[in-house]
């Protein structure tokens, strides 16, 4: 299906890489409770903050994109955690009450 192929984050990551853009990949690696996106879901981010895909229902993407910009700069992968019990929850928490861990790495 063309529509799905063009929205596939890994396909987009490769295309952006070929265009010479800096790319970071965020992946949901663990979930607890009612998490909006399953383990393995991807968000792909470029050096200018453009993004495709999702790691939540739009709740924490802003924070992940911010971290991804730093990952692109320093090349060091990071593990992020979001949830209602977390301090950051008040700012960018998951309204569904779940918790997620997101691994962010640079491509290349």
């Amino acid at each position, binding site marked *: *299906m063309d529509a799905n192929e063009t929205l596939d984050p*890994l396909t987009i990551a490769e295309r952006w890489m070929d265009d010479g853009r800096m790319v970071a990949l965020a*992946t949901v*690696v663990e979930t607890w409770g009612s998490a909006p996106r*399953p*383990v*393995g879901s991807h968000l792909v981010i470029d050096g200018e903050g453009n993004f495709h895909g999702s790691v939540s229902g739009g709740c924490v993407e802003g924070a992940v994109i911010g971290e991804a910009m730093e990952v692109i700069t320093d090349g060091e992968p990071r593990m992020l955690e979001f949830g209602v019990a977390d301090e950051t929850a008040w700012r960018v928490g998951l309204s569904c009450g779940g918790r997620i861990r997101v691994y962010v*790495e640079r491509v*290349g």
Partner: protein
Amino acid sequence: MDPFLLRKLNTERAARHAVIHLTDLGDGRDRVIREGDPVAGPLGEAIAAAFRSGKSGLVEAEARQFFLNVHLPPARIVIIGAVHISQALAKMAEIAGFDVTIIDPRTAFATEERFAGIDLVADWPEDALKTRPLDAYTALVAVTHDPKIDDVPLSQALTAGCFYVGALGSRKTHAKRVERLTALGHSEADIAKISAPIGLDIGAASPAEIAVAILADTVAHLRRRSLRGAAP
């Protein structure tokens, strides 16, 4: 992530191969493992289990933490017969997230006008399936009830281990079909995997209702199979 690996991962996915992207969360090193590639020890066991279940997740092995992202090919439905049922089924199946292909050598049926936007092949199934063969992640739905068109793909579907094989036709039609498939060398157990009469028994009457029954049956086979953890 290694750029070379990203390319490899996308190539494997495009070729409908089951792969796992394995990342060592300690040092960030990663690799792509194809189903069947030998991996020793507890990590190898976890990888084999992940291929069976299709579930991604964290694994502790050799005092390290790994993330296994499992990429199984998207489920596909190959419909033999560009008939009235197929017009409804193709649209519904795409909404449900399946890749859909319709094959029918009868050019009067297989027209762009009747199947706008659908992957439609106006050719004999044995020729059409040469370029894109059936596999374990494909459902085969045969709805022409013409043996000349249906039999070859049904036989190939049983051999390929398609997760769903359905064939339209009355019990009498199916009894004759069973005889022909037996003559082709298929076992009774294999032939019994064919859903016939096709679809869930919901009393479907119209072509669109029959499409609902077929799609529901296909989803049931896809999801129950992965719950059982059966190897593809």
